[in-house]
């Protein structure tokens, strides 16, 4: 008696295999289609605005293999300390002039290094 009762009451359970197939297919699709690399925006300023440059000149020439602060070669590591001698504080404008042969990655490297040191007003000059 009890055996027959369980036979009748057996709930029809859906077959989960096709659904799991579909879900994994979607998972793989979105894993391949998505990009986890984060793009960021770096503010770039050029001259020609109404702002005026005051104080001693602060011009960094960016060559592919060296940096020149006001014409004197400085190393990438000593750039911040050399700049501190010509700025009154680190929010003063600093002019960056890329030379022939320097690519955009080089410019971004210098801008990032200066930005991390707190030099926030970087002006690009051709």
């Amino acid at each position: 008696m009890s055996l027959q009762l369980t036979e009748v009451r057996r709930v029809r359970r859906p077959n989960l295999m096709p659904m799991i197939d579909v879900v994994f297919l979607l998972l793989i699709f979105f894993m391949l289609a998505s990009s986890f690399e984060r793009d960021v925006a770096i503010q770039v300023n050029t001259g020609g605005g109404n702002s005026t440059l005051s104080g001693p000149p602060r011009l960094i020439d960016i060559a592919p293999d060296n940096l020149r602060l006001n014409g004197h070669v400085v190393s990438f590591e000593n750039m911040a300390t050399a700049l501190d001698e010509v700025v009154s504080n680190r929010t003063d404008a600093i002019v960056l002039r890329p030379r022939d042969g320097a690519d955009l990655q080089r410019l971004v490297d210098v801008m990032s290094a200066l930005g991390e040191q707190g030099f926030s007003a970087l002006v690009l000059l051709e």
Partner: protein
Amino acid sequence: MITLQHRRRARRDDIVPMINVAFLMLVFFLMSAVIAPPAPVDIAVPTTTEASSSVDGVTLFVTSDGELIGANGSVVQDLNVFADGPVTVSADATFPANSFVRVVESLRLAGVAEIHLVARNQLN
């Protein structure tokens, strides 16, 4: 014997409502998601370790010839139409830096007040 079978059946919850809800959420997110359009030109943007703001506004792409291309793939003729809002410039890492400055300056002369450069954040 009977009580044992009864208990085992009661433990097995009905999972169909959960599947329904999960698929409803899946369909909702599928429909509300915006798939990012691919860049019209092949660009490997420079990398940076600096944490900066996220990309916003109109994005223009710089070709290796120094031409500005819109998101639709056509060359931008008149820069003045972008004077209202911020403009984000995407250029290849190997693009000459002084040519890039020239491109930024042309945007500035067209009246664009806020110009950004796209870079890829490298976690350090």
